[in-house]
């Protein structure tokens, strides 16, 4: 009996060793991918499921459109595959996803991470491994100050958006008393802090992720009696919050940032409560970006969403790089750092920190009208 057991155990050990040996071989073949048939991958990194999935899906579809157009136009060129990494917008899951991207050496660039929070969790890894990052949506200004060598941002940051929102409240709405609220997220808090630099709030408050009951905060708002409310946060909490505000009879104008710029806001708040809400965005209205809006609609059946155009541009930068033969991480990084070209949203030339020229960033104000978010005006620069 004992012998049988020993034999079985020994057999397992031998088997494990054999598997290990074969594994080593398998790894070797995978790593040497630069063959005659050129094939590279670009990763999308962001939420495709979960509460804020809409924002991620917009980005993924924008990037996908760029790659599909490239494949169609260059049937014999280098094959580009878009790898979709669903982070659920959760910074807890981000590090493992970053590790997976690092582990697949055929991925030479990342469109994303979509949100500021997950960027903080994932970018040190990606940057350390030399994977080029172009985020089409993470707008927190401090992201550029972390010393991540491969970080690039394909749009203006909240240092441009926040003050613009402040100017809009002050100059266009002419609000006297402003109540500033943030959702304590990397993005929301950063944005609200920028707004506070321009307008002096009568009072401030916070919401938290997943909150649905805002009674205590609304009591404080009613006590302050503001004529405008600025909310730095995402639509998942913004929608129900706006609904509760209106339900409690608060009539102040509701102003928010790009995180609210999604039909999900109207879905969450209801058409009536959302009416008249102002959202700012350092993004160009899709209909001002050439054929993009029409192409997007044709490809996905949906209207182009927030950051779809920016994602399209980000992906196109990578595509340009691949066209120029930069199919390794190091080459791609060098190419993007030196890139100078015009996309559909703006002109891209990255600074040392990876930002585009902030003075050229156009911030737009959008307004909710009849259940749709429509472009209202470009907020004038100071």
């Amino acid at each position, binding site marked *: 009996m004992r012998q049988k057991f020993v034999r079985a155990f020994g057999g397992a050990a031998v088997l494990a060793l054999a*598997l290990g040996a074969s594994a080593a071989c*398998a790894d070797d073949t995978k790593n040497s991918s630069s063959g005659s048939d050129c094939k590279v991958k670009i990763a999308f990194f962001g939420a495709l*499921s*979960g509460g804020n999935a809409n924002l991620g899906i917009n980005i993924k579809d924008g990037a996908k459109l760029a790659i599909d157009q490239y494949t169609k136009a260059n049937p014999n060129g280098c094959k580009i595959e878009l790898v979709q990494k669903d982070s659920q917008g959760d910074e807890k899951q981000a590090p*493992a996803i970053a*590790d997976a991207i*690092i582990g697949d050496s055929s991925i030479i660039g990342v469109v994303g991470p979509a949100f500021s929070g997950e960027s*903080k969790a994932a970018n*040190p890894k990606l940057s350390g491994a030399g994977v080029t990052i172009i985020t089409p949506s993470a707008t927190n200004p401090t992201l550029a100050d972390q010393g991540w060598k491969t970080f690039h941002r394909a749009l203006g940051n909240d240092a441009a958006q926040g003050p613009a929102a402040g100017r809009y409240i002050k100059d266009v709405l002419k609000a006297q008393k402003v109540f500033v609220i943030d959702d304590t997220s990397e993005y929301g808090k950063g944005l609200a802090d920028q707004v506070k630099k321009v307008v002096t709030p009568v009072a401030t408050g916070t919401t938290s*992720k997943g909150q649905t009951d805002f009674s205590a905060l609304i009591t404080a708002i009613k006590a302050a009696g503001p004529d405008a409310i600025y909310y730095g946060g995402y639509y998942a909490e913004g929608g129900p919050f706006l609904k509760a505000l209106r339900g409690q009879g608060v009539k102040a104008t509701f102003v928010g940032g790009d995180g609210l710029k999604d039909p999900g806001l109207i879905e969450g708040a209801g058409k009536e409560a959302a009416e008249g809400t102002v959202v700012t965005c350092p993004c160009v209205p899709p209909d001002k970006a050439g054929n993009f809006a029409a192409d997007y609609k044709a490809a996905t059946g949906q209207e182009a969403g927030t950051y779809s155009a920016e994602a399209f541009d980000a992906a196109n930068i990578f595509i340009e790089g691949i066209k120029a033969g930069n199919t390794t991480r190091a080459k791609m990084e060098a190419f993007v750092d030196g890139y100078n070209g015009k996309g559909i949203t703006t002109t891209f030339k990255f600074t040392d920190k990876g930002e585009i020229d902030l003075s050229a960033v156009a911030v737009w104000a959008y307004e909710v009208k009849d259940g749709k978010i429509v472009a209202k005006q470009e907020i004038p620069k100071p």
Partner: protein
Amino acid sequence: MMSKLRALDNRRLGFLSGIGDRWHALPKPWRIAFGLAFVVFLFALPRINIPFFRTVETDFTTVLWTVAIYVLVAVGLNVVIGLAGLLDLGYIGFFAVGAYSVALFGSPQSVLATKYPWLVCVPIAIALTMLSGVLLGWPTLRVRGDYLAIVTLGFGELIRLIAEKGDALTNGPRGIAEIPYPPGKWPAGVNSEWTGLDMFGPVTSLGWYWLTLVLVIVCMWAARRIEHSRVGRAWLAIREDEDAAEIMGVQAFRFKLWAFAIGAALGGLSGAIFAGKQNFMSSGSFELMTSILFVAMVVIGGSGNLAGVTLGAILVWYLPFKLQDFNITIDGERINFTEYRLLLFGLALIVIMTFRPQGLLPKRYRSSQPPAAAKEEVPV
């Protein structure tokens, strides 16, 4: 149907205990040799390509590390739930205290700005969690079992709320980055791309996996020693019948407090490793649902049994990663299987507790009986 399933499950258990018996019948040198071979196998696991077992969508080494860290959590929580019989729903609170200790004392971004290295932060983390374990246990361990569960749940949530709202100290959901990690660089010859990189830096996970594995083995060994010591026997007595234990002179309160403190210390150690490895953490890492998953892994696996809780940890943390490899898209909507994880574990909790309250790998020798079944029917 049900009885057939039950019979099948009993056969499975019989088979397992058969293996156990044979294992114990082996001569000691053989056992040591096999044990060592198994440990070597574990260390080599990230480089072995076992078909199907390896994850594709997520980095396999990171997955292994994740499993290892939660095995460590399970070992710690097992001291509290499995050995001392105290249901702690707020274990995540200790994990958080450990993680924040490292982040606050170590990271240059923290307001404390002490910038201690990781190796200095770890003892601080363990000391602080032990202290918080005693502080929580002192007044609460006198309350009844299910009340204790709710107090600990409240404590865990309170820690999370302080982490989330006390952003002057913890930076809330925005989190703290640049958390320090142990020193060391990869020598040449391990992996050509890694040479010169920080061994425990953000880019590679292998070093962390090995380190965590060492700690898991050490802590398991220590936990076994404690279990078979005088303290362990006292816990057993308390778990089976606290009043009887008191009469026999076991100071139940003191030993329960010990269990709490030891469990907390292990939780703190896990948290410290977690923070160092992740390099970035925020209040979002310590949600209540994670705490419930902690309990799930101990209870599903078989509380009181180290092999059981290890199995539980593997089920709870490896499976969701593996399931990501099967992501599919229906009508343009992506189905992320990770989303179903909690649902499945909720179901598993109900089913396993109903049919096998002792878990998948129940404890074999020490507990004579499912304790309640032997008791006379008391009006509930």
